[in-house]
């Protein structure tokens, strides 16, 4: 069992810390800044904020290199295998789920990463949003289950 081993948990801690610092430094914790990226109607007037693109492109580039490095190895450092996502098909659930998420994201400017990192600042209304997000996730788990074995079985159907 890898989950109780110290290096495994330290890796999770380091990754979480880097993620949280990145969200603050990039200002993606600011819902208004995210909405100003999504507001493409402001492009003609010069009021558009392109920052989010400058966040996601280097993030993808760094992870792309990590994925390449991982391909040359049979396993990660602290576990016996890479946990690739169980689901591989492009289906109605993927598209419908992404559409619902897009609607929620466009209404709030908050995606799950910033939602969690905003706990550091506790703005008014955040706990309401987080509770609703958890409830939504639980409701969704009736359709797409939790846990590797259940997910594999579900994906194979």
């Amino acid at each position, binding site marked *: 069992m890898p989950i109780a081993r110290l290096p*495994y948990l330290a*890796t*999770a*801690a380091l990754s*979480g810390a*880097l*993620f*949280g*610092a*990145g*969200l*603050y*430094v990039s200002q993606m*914790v*600011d819902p208004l*800044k995210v909405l*100003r990226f999504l507001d*493409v*109607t402001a492009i003609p007037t010069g009021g558009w904020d*392109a*920052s989010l693109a400058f*966040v*996601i492109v280097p993030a993808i*580039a760094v992870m*792309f290199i*990590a*994925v390449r490095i991982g391909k040359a190895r049979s396993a*990660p450092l602290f576990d016996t295998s890479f*946990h*690739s996502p169980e689901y591989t098909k492009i289906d109605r*659930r993927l598209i419908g*789920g*992404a559409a619902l*998420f897009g609607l*929620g*994201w*466009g*209404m709030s400017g*908050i995606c799950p*990463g910033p*939602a*969690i*990192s905003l*706990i550091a*600042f506790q*703005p008014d*209304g*955040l706990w*309401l*949003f987080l509770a*609703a*997000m958890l*409830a*939504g*996730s639980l*409701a*969704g*788990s009736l*359709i797409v289950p*939790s846990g590797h074995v259940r997910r594999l079985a579900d994906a194979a159907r």
Partner: protein
Amino acid sequence: MESFTPLTAALGGTLIGLAAAVLWLGNGRIAGISGIFGQLLPPAQTVLWRLVFLVCLVAATFLAARAFPQLGVGGVVPAELVPPPAAWSVPVPVWLIAAGLLTGIGTRIGNGCTSGHGVCGLARLSLRSLVAVAVFFSVAILTVAVTGIV
């Protein structure tokens, strides 16, 4: 506050990419926040690392804001959620609950969010993630345009 901040954006993005790289090469896990958050509750079995990850994410956000308060919202400028568009006359809690529910259910059914599909999935050259990213960005952009929330 400057509205367009490419340098700090790229620096922050690099940190987020490193976070994803560390979790993948160290533990073989995808740094997808909706998945990590959504699988905190039973019947999920591996809760501990997810909890550690999320606690450290919040703590690092807090400490970064203390160390570099000039850098962004949450430092000198207080962090705030965005109220619903005035023209819609929807109470704030109703709007936030609706947005939170949609985000939770959508990321669960679609199996990922901006980090899982957007950063990790695209870096893995997953066609599935590319489709998800195209859909949620399009719908979000449309939502902002239609609601006039900004």
